[in-house]
């Protein structure tokens, strides 16, 4: 419902709220589209749906049982019907059962997502903070050696294969120097409640470092641009005229100017963050959602794959939503295409 319609109905919504409502509806529509796309792709796969449904147990099932399963789950119905059937169940929270893990998809996703989050959240914060700091330093003295070094660093980072960086860190810090554990989320042999916080942190170090390093680039470059722009603005000139140093101006004024845009970039980059997490989890044997996605795709676990598609689309969608909200807050004149 648009702002005008709301107005016509006699409601007076503040513009930001109206924007939020519009975007939420759009997000819902988007999720349905994503679901349809994912479903269509999964159906197109050259995999027998009954085989995929049963997983390893397919080996022992006879033809009559197969027909019964096909009928009960609607595999013999036309695709749009199947999609609606699946969507209906998904909306009620039933995403089916994962054939790989023999557990409800929602449960698998919940567990795995929590593990991924433990990795992604610190990396996101750290990468953001580092990127902002570097961008600030670079933009404060445009053209200086620090600026050039940081730009070179960001440039290199964009060309770096993420999983290779992960492997390098693994080789150097875990295999050669032995400073970090070689894999996994917890030390072997301990029950979850026996693992100390320190041990958990130790296992987080390498994967988080990898992800942070990978996430620094876009934030740093964008911040740098904004800071440089701010340093050339009028209020900066006034500050310089009053004797303030470059660093002081940068920290006091430019940083505030660049903070929200940096945050916007951070939220918009959640999709890339997840992508980085997928390969980091593979290298460090981290039991997260990324690895589950790979397993599901390689081993034809359709319910899990669809569930993950939905979950990650929601994740990215929320990130983009917040980014857009922030962008709106920064400059409401920019009528972003809803």
């Amino acid at each position, binding site marked *: 419902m648009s702002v005008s319609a709301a107005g016509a109905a006699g409601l007076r919504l503040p513009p930001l709220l109206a924007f939020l409502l519009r975007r939420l509806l759009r997000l819902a529509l988007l999720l349905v589209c994503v679901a349809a796309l994912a479903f269509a*792709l999964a159906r197109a796969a050259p995999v027998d749906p009954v085989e995929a449904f049963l997983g390893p147990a397919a080996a022992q099932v006879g033809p009559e049982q197969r027909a019964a399963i096909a009928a009960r789950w609607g595999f013999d119905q036309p695709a749009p019907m199947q999609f609606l059937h699946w969507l209906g169940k998904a909306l009620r929270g039933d995403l089916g059962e994962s054939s790989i893990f023999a557990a409800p998809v929602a449960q698998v996703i919940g567990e795995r997502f929590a593990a991924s989050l433990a990795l992604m959240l610190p990396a996101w914060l750290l990468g953001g903070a580092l990127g902002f700091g570097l961008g600030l330093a670079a933009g404060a003295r445009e053209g200086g050696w620090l600026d050039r070094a940081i730009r070179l660093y960001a440039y290199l980072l964009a060309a770096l294969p993420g999983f290779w960086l992960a492997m390098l860190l693994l*080789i150097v810090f875990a295999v050669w120097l032995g400073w970090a554990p070689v894999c996994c989320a917890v030390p072997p042999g301990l029950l979850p409640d026996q693992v100390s916080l320190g041990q958990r942190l130790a296992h987080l170090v390498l994967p988080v470092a990898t992800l942070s390093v990978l996430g620094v680039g876009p934030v740093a470059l964008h911040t740098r641009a904004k800071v440089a722009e701010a340093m050339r603005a009028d209020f900066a000139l006034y500050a310089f005229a009053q004797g303030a140093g470059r660093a002081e101006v940068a920290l006091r004024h430019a940083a505030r100017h660049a903070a929200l845009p940096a945050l916007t970039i951070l939220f918009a980059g959640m999709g890339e963050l997840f992508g980085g997490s997928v390969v980091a989890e593979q290298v460090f044997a981290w039991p997260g959602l990324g690895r589950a996605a790979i397993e599901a795709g390689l081993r034809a676990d359709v319910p899990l794959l669809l569930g993950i598609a939905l979950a990650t689309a929601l994740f990215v969608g929320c990130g983009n939503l917040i980014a857009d909200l922030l962008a709106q807050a920064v400059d409401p004149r920019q009528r972003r295409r809803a």
Partner: protein
Amino acid sequence: MNARAKIKARVNARGRLLLTGLTAALLLGGALLAGHGMDAALLRPRFGLAALPPGPGYPFGTDALGRDLLARSLRGLETSLLVGLLAATASTLIALLLAGLAMLGRAADAIVGLAVETCIGLPHLVLMILVAFALGGGVGAVVAAVALTHWPVLTRILRAEFQAVLTADYVIHARRFGHGPWFILRRHLLPHALPQLAVGFVLMLPHAILHEAALTFVGFGIAPARPSIGGLLAEALGSLSAGWWWLGVLPGALLLAAVLCLDGIASGLRAWLSPRVAEA
């Protein structure tokens, strides 16, 4: 800086970028030719030469089956580049087509916009996994997955460009004169879009290559049909604790170098096409 010095600086900057681009192109081309010219026997298992570290005769060392790592890495690079080229071409064409279709009317524009947002709404790797799965997970599936998932960003850019062009005065006049949409497309939109297309194409290449490497690294594609950098690194992961560090470090370094070359070529191209861009 006075005006003359400014112009000189601009020309110098442009010249530098062009030179960089040319050098990068030569390096990359040279590496690929060298890889193609290497003896095919180096790619096959050779008993007795297993797991040799880099040294004389084996610049990159050998793997567990005695296959020369440099030969395999260069072949893998060739594969990655081919896939990248294919992907960039396909994605560029798709982007052009969709952006053009979007100009046909509000409904078409809305649909194209929705399609773009849907594809951007998923993490890129998840979308690629879905496409690769849909196509059977083999080598062709990986190529298609990379080729069919890079169009959204370029489509968005082109759409914005086309919108700007369509609202320009000269196009409105052309319409008033009675020229049809096909004429508008050919005479006005396309020429305007070509520089964007070219730049978009070249910028897409490194992304496509890195994504192809990531997909084969996590296990899609079919080992060991053709060596690919991602596949090499995935194999190397298993032998890191055996101390065979060169299997993991060197192919990745080669990929990094190749992507940097491509970035250099991209900047050179931009400098050549639109001198103002060289200032950025």
